[in-house]
Each structure stands twice: as structure tokens, then as C-alpha cells.
């Protein structure tokens, strides 16, 4: 094994280490229960068993296939299993998109830096359906790049979408990417006056048609499209962290790195003007602007555009070996980054003894003590709860129904939308609406406006504290 290969291996290893994050998906619990239901009954759960606000709502769960995977991983290897699965998937995302280029270790390091920083906002909660969908984007772009030279890899696209349509609603964006790439290839052939354009076009259209048909093979049929489209037009999504702009207080967005990376790509597009870059330019503009508006697009943006930078670096001729200091500096950087992860970053994440309490700490301060209390002392009636905690308490199996949880941000029936009311009550301080509901109990963060308002005034009725711990408070309405 030569030095270059050792360094390359270590560079990839460092990228893998940086993909390790504490598992902190606040939707963990309902995914777990949906997975459990599927594995016990053999059919996806269509009904709402966990909240009282829309009891008869039938939800198109566009990520239903993820739930049994999470259930199996969690029940067999716990949080550590989810953490490692998340890291492995994110690492594979990077590896798949990069390994097709001939790059020395330091070039992989440069690409790894941008990937680690810009994708962080999408992967910092570890194993989620979104993380799997980012891997699928990587596979898709890799296939589309290969398909430029020979069409054989295109046969993988329909089965990929069959899986994707059952895994996450972002498959719709995947279809758009396929159209942009294949359309650009055809346009390039027309401009270059190549032969057999019609044949190529018909193959592309055939593959496109088969792909679209296969996306309909899911438990919810065409409704999966409607569910995915709902996400593009819902104004209430601005109250969910991952749908907010990157400028809105987001330490994991790494704005400066994103803008620096975008600047480098823009320079490449300007300096190396060629038609072959067309699909990347379209996606760069579309996804770049989308990422500024909605941070959840950042990882997709970097995955889709990374090949442009990789290609440039591949063509860049710099002989680092001629510098005697290269080895010395490489050893420092590699040693520091490995030890930083093992002896600093993972310690801050408490990964070596990650527990449910740590999950709660990183996932909006839910409370295992509160969960134990609620299981032993379930309240009666209908109550109000903090949106981010819904998933956790469902997963803990509390024996009563909640007002709201992470599934419900788009749920609407007969013009009634609990999430809209939640936003009005929790974020906008609508006391009137809160009082109209006549809740029997309230489960919120101690420091929240509602938590403090109930504690300090009678504006929201008369309540008594039933249980309180460091971060959460549980009130029961006084008779």
C-alpha cells in the first residue's frame, strides 16, 4: 500500500467521522410506532392512532418504507445503531458522487470539506428518511453522469425510483433532475449535430415513462404525488426549522462556506463555458436559490453540484509531492481531525455512552422522567402539547392521545388544520383560540411563552403543576 492510498483511505475515514452526529430526530417515536405496526400487520398504518385533534384523518405517509427500517435498527442496536447507520449513509453519499473521479487525497479533502459543511444541516440529526433520500440523489447523479458516455446505467433509474417513491417524497425533485440531465444531453447532441438523436430521445422518454409508472407502485398510489406537492405551497412550513431560510439563526448551515462554494462554482461556470455544464448550471441556480430560502435543500444542492468541482480539481495539475512539507502538514491535519473527532467532538456529543437522556438533550429537550410520569399517571381529556415532543412521547407509548406531532404539519380536514391553530397558540400567542379549545392538560417547555403565561397569570385559565423537571412542565386544569 503506497503513501497516497493510505492518505486517501484516512481522508475518506475523516469524512466518515464527520458524518457521525448524535441521533436527534424529534419524529423518532412515531416512525418507530409506524414501523412496528407494519412489521406486525404487514400493511402500512393509514389511520391516526396517536392524536385526538384529527382522529379520522387518513395520512399518505410518503416515507412509510423508512419506518420498519428504523424500527429494526432501533430495536436491535438502539441509538448507536441509528447514529452509525446515519453516518454510513451520509458517507456513502459522498463516496458515490466522488469516487468516479481520479482525485488525490488532498483533492478529496477539499471536496470533503465542502460536503461536510454544506450538508450538515440535513444530516445533523443522523439517520432520517431525508438522509436516505440524499444518498439516492447521489446515486441518481452518478448514474446520470455515467449515462452521458453510455446508456446502459440508465436501466438502474426505474428501480431506483421504485424504491425512492416509497422512501421519501423528494423523488419528485429526482424526476425533475432526470429530465434536466437527459434533456440537456439531447440538446447537446442537437447542437453538436450528432446522429441518432431521435433514437436517444425515444430511449430517454421510454425510461422516463417506465420510471413514472413505477413511482405509482406504492401503498398510496398517485396520492404520493399530491403529498409531495403539498410541501411546495404550505405557508405554515415556515414554523418548522428545516423549512426556514439559511439566514435565520442556523449554526449548522455554514452560510459562509455555502456562499464561498457557490462563488467557486460560479467562477468555474464563467471560466469554462460549455454546454455540458448546462444541467449543473440549471440545478445550481434552482437549488442554490431554494437552499437560501429553505435550508433543507442545502445537502441536495451540494450533492448535485459537487461533480463540477470534482471535475475541475481532477484537471488541476498541482504536484504537491514536490514540496517537502506536504507530508508534514498532511500528517498534522489527518492526526488532528481524527483525534478531534474521537477525543473532542464525540465527547461533546456524549457518544461513548449515548442514552435516551442524551437523545432528549439534542432533540428539543424532551424528558424521559416526564415520559415515565405520564405513563404511570396518564391524564384524562384532551390536552395541548409542544409539537417537537409529540414524536418522542408517541414512541414512549404514553397511554393517551396528543394534540399534535411531527406528522401533522400538513394535515387538514374540513378546513380544520390543527397545525395552523398550534402556530396561532404557541408562536403567535393567541389566548382566545387557546381558551376556545378548553384543554384539560398542557405539556410544554418550562421556558415557553405558554408555559410561562400559565405559571404567571390566569390569562389561559387556572392550572396546577402536575409534574415539572429541568426543561418541561405538565399542567392539569384546575376544577
Amino acid at each position, binding site marked *: 500500500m503506497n503513501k497516497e492510498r493510505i492518505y486517501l483511505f484516512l481522508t475518506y475515514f475523516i469524512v466518515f467521522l464527520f458524518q457521525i452526529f448524535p441521533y436527534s430526530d424529534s419524529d423518532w417515536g412515531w416512525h418507530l410506532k409506524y414501523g412496528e405496526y407494519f412489521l406486525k400487520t404487514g400493511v402500512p398504518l393509514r389511520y391516526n392512532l396517536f392524536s385526538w385533534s384529527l382522529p379520522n384523518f387518513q395520512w399518505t405517509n410518503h416515507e412509510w418504507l423508512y419506518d420498519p427500517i428504523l424500527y429494526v435498527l432501533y430495536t436491535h442496536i438502539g441509538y448507536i445503531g441509528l447514529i452509525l447507520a446515519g453516518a454510513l449513509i451520509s458517507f456513502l453519499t459522498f463516496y458515490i458522487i466522488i469516487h468516479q473521479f481520479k482525485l488525490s487525497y488532498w483533492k478529496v479533502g477539499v471536496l470533503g470539506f465542502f460536503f461536510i459543511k454544506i450538508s450538515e444541516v440535513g444530516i445533523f440529526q443522523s439517520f432520517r428518511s431525508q438522509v436516505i433520500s440524499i444518498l439516492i440523489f447521489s446515486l441518481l447523479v452518478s448514474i446520470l453522469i455515467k449515462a452521458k458516455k453510455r446508456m446502459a446505467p440508465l436501466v438502474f433509474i426505474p428501480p431506483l425510483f421504485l424504491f425512492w417513491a416509497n422512501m421519501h417524497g423528494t423523488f419528485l425533485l429526482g424526476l425533475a433532475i432526470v429530465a434536466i440531465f437527459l434533456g440537456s444531453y439531447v440538446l447537446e447532441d442537437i447542437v453538436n449535430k450528432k446522429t441518432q438523436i431521435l433514437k436517444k430521445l425515444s430511449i430517454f422518454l421510454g425510461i422516463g415513462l417506465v420510471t413514472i409508472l413505477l413511482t405509482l407502485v406504492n401503498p398510496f398510489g398517485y396520492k404520493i404525488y399530491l403529498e409531495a406537492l403539498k410541501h411546495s405551497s404550505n405557508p405554515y412550513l415556515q414554523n418548522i426549522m428545516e423549512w426556514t431560510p439559511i439566514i435565520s439563526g442556523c449554526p449548522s448551515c455554514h452560510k459562509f462556506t455555502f456562499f464561498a462554494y457557490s462563488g467557486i462554482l460560479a467562477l468555474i461556470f464563467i471560466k469554462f463555458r460549455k454546454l455540458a455544464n448546462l444541467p449543473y448550471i440549471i440545478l445550481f441556480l434552482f437549488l442554490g436559490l431554494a437552499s437560501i430560502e429553505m435550508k433543507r435543500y442545502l445537502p441536495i444542492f451540494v450533492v448535485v453540484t459537487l461533480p463540477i468541482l470534482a471535475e475541475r480539481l481532477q484537471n488541476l495539475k498541482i504536484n504537491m509531492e514536490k514540496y*517537502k512539507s506536504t507530508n508534514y*502538514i498532511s500528517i498534522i491535519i489527518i492526526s*488532528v481531525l481524527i*483525534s*478531534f473527532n474521537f*477525543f*473532542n467532538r464525540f465527547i461533546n456529543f456524549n457518544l461513548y455512552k449515548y442514552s435516551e437522556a442524551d437523545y432528549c438533550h439534542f432533540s428539543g429537550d424532551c424528558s424521559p422522567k416526564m415520559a415515565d410520569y405520564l405513563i404511570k399517571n396518564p391524564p384524562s381529556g384532551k390536552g395541548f402539547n409542544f409539537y417537537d415532543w409529540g414524536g418522542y412521547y408517541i414512541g414512549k407509548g404514553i397511554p393517551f392521545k396528543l394534540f399534535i406531532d411531527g406528522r401533522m404539519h400538513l394535515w387538514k380536514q374540513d378546513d380544520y388544520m390543527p397545525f395552523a391553530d398550534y402556530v396561532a397558540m404557541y408562536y403567535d400567542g393567541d389566548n382566545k383560540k387557546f381558551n376556545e379549545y378548553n384543554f384539560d392538560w398542557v405539556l410544554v417547555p418550562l421556558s415557553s411563552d405558554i408555559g410561562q403565561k400559565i405559571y404567571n397569570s390566569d390569562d389561559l385559565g387556572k392550572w396546577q403543576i402536575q409534574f415539572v423537571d429541568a426543561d418541561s412542565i405538565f399542567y392539569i386544569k384546575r376544577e
Partner: protein
Amino acid sequence: MKKEKILIVIIAFITLTLINLPIFYFYVAKSDNLVFLGRRVINGEDTYTYVSFIEQSRQGRNLFENLYTTEEQKPLLLRPSYLFLGKLAAILKLSSITTYHLARIVFSIFFFIVIYKFICKFFNDTNTRLVAFFVICLSYGFGAINWIPEAFTFLSLAEAPHFILSQILMLLGFYFLIDFSLISPILFFLLSFEHPFNILVVSSTIIFSFLWSRKGLLKALIFVSLPLAGILYQLFEIRNNPILASWQAQNSTLSPSPNDYLLGFGILIPLAIIGIEIFIKKNKFKYKLILTWVIASIIMLYSPTNFQTRMIEGIHIPISILATSGIFVIYNRLKKHKNVFLFLILIILPIWSLTSIVKDFKIISANQSHYYSIDKDEFEAISWLGSNTNFDDIILSNKDYGNIIPGLIGRKTYLGHSIQTTNLKFKIANTNSFLLEQNEFTANSFVYFNKITYIFLGKDDFMLKYGFMPEKFHFLEKIYDKAGVLIYKVRQNDLFTNQK
């Protein structure tokens, strides 16, 4: 040569003046009813912990205790420099805080001499030596890690005397190591008592530089054995002293991310990278020593310890030496504007050092009456407490007074420091309960079991604002009441005697 030395003295004088300007200014410009406490913004909470060692020695003790915690403890030989400074303060009849600052200034002057000698080992050219001296004394990055003052020479010289002394010992140790003199391990042995953390960096540097230069592992072990013995003594003391162990455990200083360090050192890093190429090519032990020093420190910054940031002390020196080398690589390659480049670099590098001074002025001016200064009446009351209590007395006060009392009068406080007060959070919670306690027996139990003998209340004290009403407790006797400053003495277990 004479001109060079004059310029070196000028740079050293400017550095020393800039560093000490806020301290001088606030001592002179304080208002009549305030006493400036002589601490600065960065690490201000630690200043009086160091002064408390000088004060203990000044009062005649030869072994030190942690005065910020009240549990039983065995006195120890910690930081011998403070033992010496305390004795000196007693002879010269100086206050401990004055001795602390004078020692800082005197050690800084020694540091300048040592650093100049050290630079001379690496650069023959006068201009390069001057630039290297300037860069070491004044350069700074972009402020990302200004909460770790020992990362930069400029901030270190503004810190406690033992920080400066430990860097002097480190530099002298390496200076003699270049010639393989056996004075080197003796200096490192002394260093192991002043700042034991540095020995981990020093030992790794020695071992790896010897191996890299094919000088033999055995030789390296001869040089590291003595300082490691010093470390073993410290480890033995920690194992046998629960207070020291708890202090050590609470003193968790994990490193920030590598990004912060890169921003922290700013343009010194790219300049040093250029310098590395030059030093590697020279292929001599002394150059390898500098390179190994850098690599050992950087790797130790993420070592499996809970005191990672402590390893950074001194790293600024080899980085600055490498950066100077890098500056002259660029300088020599430039065909035009050479002097403009040099001028710009020498302007840019110290900018953040100056901002740290400005920050001191701004923050201390804005908080004149609190934390950085105390009321003259309060100062008098604390002095009175010093004259009317003995070493075994324990004083309860709010945390701000609890932080300065050990340094001002050498008495223990129940709570006073985030790290040195064992179980601080628990003690704060207990104190808060005590302050609002209605039951005399419960309140008396608190002071009895914590061996508290005095309660100090400043003007408009936080504890009174919180709801503490000392006059309602019979076990407290008011023994000092002047200009709103109150001192209560705990009566000898009246309640417990009565209960029996």
C-alpha cells in the same frame, strides 16, 4: 548589533506598555470611593485564585490550600513561584495583588531576553530576528480563541506570572536542549511544578525530535525522565488529595473546533506553512525541534484528556518563528514593493492585540463599580475581616466577594470560583435555600455543617436583595456595620447546644 538591540528594547517596551496600559490606567484613574481590583477582562475570574497563593505565602504559609472550597484538605506545594513571590511581598511589605503585577512585569522582561536569545539560534540576519521578535511579541489572529490567553504571547504576558514563567522555562529548556545540555531537563523539571500540562507537550517534542533526527530514544528518555518525575509527583498528589482531584475533574477545558484555532491564529498559519518548507529543508536538529514542537502541541490539543486547551501554551512561539521564515520567503521572492509587503504584514499582525487592549478599556470602564473595582468601604471591611479572623475561618458571601476575599486576605470562602469551588452548583443551590430559610434550626444546620464562621454582606448585596434577613437569626451576631457594609459572626453552635 547595537542598533538591533536598541530596536529589540523598543519593541519590548512598546509591548510591555501596551499590555499594562489598562492596569496602570485604572489604578491611576479610579474614582475616590472605589478600589481597582487589578484584574482584566480575559480570565478575570482566575486572577484572585493566583493572588490567593501569594497571599498565603505572604502570611507565612509554605504549603498551599485551595481557599475557594471548604472541605478538609491537605496543604500542598503548588506553583513554587507564588511561594517565592509571597515571601518577597512579605519582605517588601507589598500587597499580594501588587506583587502579582510586579512579578508579571519582571517576568515579562526576562521573557523578552530569553526569547531574543532563542530567536538568535534560528536566524542569523538582523532584520529577520527583529521581525521574529516583533511577531512573537505582538502578533495575534482574528480573535476566535481570545478566551484562551495562553495561546498568544501578547495575552500570556498580560496573564498570571506563572504563565510567563512557565513559558520562560519552556523556552530555556528547549534553548539548552539544542546543545543537548543537561541543564535542559532541570528546567523542565521546574516547569512540571509551575505548569505540569506543558510537560506532555515538552516530552512528546523531545522524544519525536530525537527520533526524527536519529539521536536515539535512550538519549531522549534521559531528557524527559526528570520532568516526567515531576508529573508523577503531581499525579500522586492528585490521587491522594480529593480536593485537588475534584478541582482537576471540574477543570474540563476541551478544545474548540479546529476552525476556531485556524481563525484564532489567522494569517500566521499560511505564513507558517510557507516557513515549514524552509525549516524541513534545513534538516538540522534545532529546526526539527521547532517543527516537532508545533506538531506535538497541535496533536495534544485533541488528546484524550479533559484539559486539551492547556496544551496550547507556548505554541505561538514556534508558529511565529515559522511565520517569520514564511514572511521572508515571500519578501525575497517579491520583485517590487518588498517593503510595502513587510510594512503591511507588520501592521496587520498586531491589530487584534490592540483590540484586546481596547476591549479591556471598554469593558472595565463600563463596569467600574462592579467586578473590576469595589467600594472603598467594602474594601476596608474585607481588610478588617482579614485582621480579625484566622486562617481556619470560612466566610460566606456572594460569589463576587467570594472570588476576591481569598486573594485579598487569605481566608476561605464557601463559594467563589467556577472550578476551584468543589460542587459549586450544589453549593449555590444550598446557599439560595439558606438565604430564604425561615426555620432557625435548618438555617443554623447549614452554617454548622459547612463550618461557616462569618457572613460578609456588601453595600446593596445580592444576598440581601434575594431576601436574606440575617437579623432574624439568633445564631448570627452583627460584628461590623459601617457605611452599609455588614459582617456577621456565627455564634458558637448555640442552637445545637440548646437542642441537646
